């Protein structure tokens, strides 16, 4: 069951080395975070509210620069990447935001297609992919509906579909079950596991829902007192 391995032989999907995370001008929220996630790993990140889960994830999906230390994604250090490289790297990372971040003036279809449009792809080349994915997340009948007319759970699934549309190598989800009932939460987690198995996508999910975590036999990392540490699984963090 070793999901976290410290190996120098192959390039990990994600490697953190002595990472300090926080906002400029204030003390780090997380210190000395060291971690390795290989391609195909699936793990949970937990911690109390305000522990720094979202801040750590922001840094991992390249929205917030680290205060100190190094992030390596697929063998490349972010310090060595140009802004163009960072944009290109973001396209390999799918993110499910806690607050969804859907664009209200676009339909579910157009929200999901957003990462493909910014990549410069034409509608003809992705229309079927987007429709298939929306059906896969159970929104086949809500394809042309804008987010304000969707329920919280439906919006969550649109956000998930958007994160998955360009078959990311790394999927990061921040409290993806925060606004859905436990049954929908289970469905969403199973969806992530299916994605993990089907495409060998590396998955990191932040959640404080210990009940749900306990139903899935996957490694768990915890942030406590500004430190990242393993609490389940053979973890070397």
């Amino acid at each position: 069951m070793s999901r976290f391995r410290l190996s120098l032989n192959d390039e990990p999907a994600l490697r953190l080395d002595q990472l300090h995370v926080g906002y400029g001008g204030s003390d780090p929220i997380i210190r000395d975070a060291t971690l390795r996630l290989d391609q195909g790993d699936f793990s949970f990140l937990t911690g109390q509210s305000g522990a720094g889960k979202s801040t750590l994830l922001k840094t991992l999906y390249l929205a917030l620069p680290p205060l100190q230390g190094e992030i390596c994604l697929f063998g490349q250090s972010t310090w060595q990447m140009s802004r163009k490289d960072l944009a290109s790297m973001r396209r390999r990372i799918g993110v499910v935001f806690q607050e969804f971040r859907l664009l209200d003036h676009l339909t579910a279809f157009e929200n999901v297609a957003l990462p493909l449009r910014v990549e410069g792809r034409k509608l003809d080349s992705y229309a079927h992919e987007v429709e298939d994915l929306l059906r896969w997340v159970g929104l086949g009948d809500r394809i042309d509906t804008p987010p304000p007319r969707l329920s919280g759970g439906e919006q969550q699934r649109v956000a998930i579909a958007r994160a998955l549309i360009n078959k990311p190598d790394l999927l990061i989800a921040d409290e993806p079950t925060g606004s859905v009932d436990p049954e929908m939460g289970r469905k969403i987690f199973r969806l992530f596991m299916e994605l993990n198995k089907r495409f060998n996508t590396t998955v990191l999910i932040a959640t404080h829902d210990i009940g749900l975590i306990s139903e899935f036999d996957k490694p768990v990392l915890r942030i406590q007192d500004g430190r990242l540490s393993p609490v389940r699984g053979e973890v070397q963090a």
Partner: protein
Amino acid sequence: MNRESPLLPHTEAREAALFFVIGALCFLAALAALTTRGTYAAAAAWGDQIEGEFTVVLQDTDRRTATGIADDIAQMTGIDGARLLSEAELDELLAPSFGPGGLPDGLPLPLLIAVQAAPDAPDPEPAITTILDQAEVEGEVSGHGGFARQVQRALAVLRLIGIGAVSLLAATAIAVIAFATHAALLARKDIVDVLHLSGAEDRFIARLFARRFWVLALQAGSGGALAALMTTALIVFSASSSGAVESQLLPRLSLDIVDFAILVVTPVIAGLAARGAARITVLQALKGTM
């Protein structure tokens, strides 16, 4: 169903306010530019006219001799016209000094020849003096040079004030448009963030917003320029109907090709200001991110 809606939402209430601000500023800027140009033209014409006018004052001679002298002057090179003022015209000229009662009888008055020289003509005074000497008439040439120089100085100040006012208004308009664009765009930072995190490059996002605000400012500016055109046309029409346009003291609003160029350029400048502000705002917002 269209499945490629614009990545930026259609015009919103806050953009309607921006639209109004840009339109109003372009209206004011275009109108100020047209008026300043009209004032400039009127001032130049006024100056030219004063510059070319002078009077020959003849003492102790009769009207017949004076008429002959006026004819000789009129035939000189660089002279557009010369004529002896009638007694009625002299009375009218002196009326402000002597009141409605008219001139006292027996008051010796000089005879006056009004001369209009062509613009850029050489100084005619030596030639006129020669004509007077040949006719054995005592007289002097009274040019308006000193007055004209004062007028020219006043006109130069007027032109500077006009150009300064238009420049200041244009600069203010550009600054306000840039600031309003910046404010309108910051309100849509959510879209910038989503696009950024979806892997869009900085240039892609900046181009998207720059194009949006360029079009918005161009439309609003065109509306403002059109309103300025209509207002100017109305002024020109009203002035020509009332005959005021004949006065050299009023701005000469003409709506010629230069005026139309001003009306075309105004919205383009507004568009460029909005476009530049949008681009800078987006790039600065993204600079703070990774």
